């Protein structure tokens, strides 16, 4: 408790320029990395994906299956955690009251959400890709029964691994957008899990042709496979035409973008 502050209020205002995206992004990066839950959640997500890859690889018995898809089986369950983390990055500000400190520091609210999305999206992309590649190699190494591990030289294999990694980031951003829209942790997690996982089950049962547009179905059947099933590839079976990997990626990007756009609009419009 020493003397207060510099005795020249106003002198600081001479600093040129104004706050920019990079300043806000630095703030968001410090916020994200100084939360222990960030690293716990991302670590468990990655470890789960890798462990599941090993288990599935170990138990795969026939090469008739898409081995790449098999060893990427841990991606979809891990997405719940990334999505929930995305929700909490946003709702944590509202439940703690931090949002008012944040918005007093940076009154440009869409800029705050954009910086949050860039930082969180970037971190989850890096972690997601690391997890997907590690899971791929670990799962491939665990193959038995004389099965030959897939390689990146084969069609669609590298793409499936890369897009699976990206799925973490896009699910996280969807959670972030929902968090901005809903503001309450429990409600936002409910909408995320209900909308992404449970709704996919219901739509799958009621209207299978629409199920291919559900995020989980896209990730499991379009992104993480070397060759999404079509009517032609499954003669005699039920005719489900999954989205192509790139159409699926576009669809996921659209979900995240719409959630973030609505969230940004609401955050700017509402009292903080």
């Amino acid at each position: 408790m020493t003397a207060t502050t510099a005795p020249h209020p106003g002198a600081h205002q001479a600093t040129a320029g104004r706050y920019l995206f990079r300043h806000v992004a630095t703030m968001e990066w410090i916020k994200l990395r100084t939360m222990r839950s960030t690293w716990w959640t991302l670590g468990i997500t990655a470890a789960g994906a890798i462990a599941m890859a090993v288990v599935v690889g170990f138990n795969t018995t026939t090469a008739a299956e898409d081995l790449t898809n098999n060893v990427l089986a841990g991606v979809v369950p891990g997405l719940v955690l990334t999505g929930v983390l995305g929700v909490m990055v946003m709702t944590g500000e509202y439940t703690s009251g931090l949002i008012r400190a944040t918005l007093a520091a940076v009154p440009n609210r869409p800029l705050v959400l954009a910086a949050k999305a860039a930082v969180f999206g970037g971190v989850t992309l890096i972690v997601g890709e690391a997890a997907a590649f590690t899971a791929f190699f670990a799962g491939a190494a665990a193959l038995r029964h004389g099965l030959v591990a897939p390689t990146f030289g084969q069609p669609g294999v590298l793409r499936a691994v890369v897009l699976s990694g990206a799925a973490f980031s896009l699910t996280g951003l969807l959670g972030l957008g929902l968090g901005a829209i809903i503001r309450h942790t429990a409600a936002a997690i409910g909408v995320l899990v209900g909308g992404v996982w449970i709704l996919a089950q219901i739509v799958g049962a009621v209207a299978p042709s629409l199920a291919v547009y559900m995020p989980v179905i896209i990730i499991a059947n379009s992104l993480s496979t070397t060759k999404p099933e079509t009517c032609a590839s499954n003669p005699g079976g039920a005719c489900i035409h999954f989205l192509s990997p790139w159409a699926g990626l576009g669809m996921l990007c659209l979900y995240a973008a719409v959630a973030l756009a609505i969230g940004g609009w609401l955050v700017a419009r509402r009292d903080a």
Partner: protein
Amino acid sequence: MIEVRELTKRYGPVLAVDGLSFRLRPGAVTGFLGPNGSGKSTTMRMILGLDYPDGGTARLGGRCYRDLAWPLREVGALLEAKAFHPGRSARAHLAALAASNKIPRARVDEVLDIVGLSAVATRRAGKFSLGMAQRLGIAAALLGDPGVLLFDEPVNGLDPEGIRWIRTLMKSLARQGRTVFVSSHLITEMALTAERLIVIGGGRMLADTTVAELSSRSASLEDAFLDLTSGTAECRATGRTS
């Protein structure tokens, strides 16, 4: 300088702030006095651009808050006791805010020292007592060395030593030429801290006066305040006078 003109805020059927106008000049502590629920916090949030007014304006040096180039370097605010995430340390919280306004990292340790939190800077702020939380909020307000400071009920939860510390701090900030605006529902505390008093009740201006002038109106300053605000409080101990 802060200029509030005809500021109005409505929450559903309730008029929280009703055509409030005043100006704040640098170099003095201005007390913002009123009973609970009289619209003090809402007014401060509108000055900071956090709540949107339904009418009127709040300007800082002629500009809206959202147009400030480096908000934290111009205005510092303590709005509520816990405007931080409980999982983050005091130092991380301040470092994040500092980064957003390009405030040098060394300033974080400086303000931690000013408020006496250096020893607990790396502990999770969620474990802080209310008094420590208030100090962290004050550290955040001082971060950008701003010329304008807003404190909403800063002495809540503080022990006598902490209350005296805040009082001394606010006075020295004003002496340095800063504009200091402090809300409270405690007339006795305001009498010790502020020279000028803006008294509101039910969202309306009741008096723009000085401590000396107000206390000359009644037997005591407390009587004067209660006379002034009677009939505006939402819930009153005695029967209503219509």
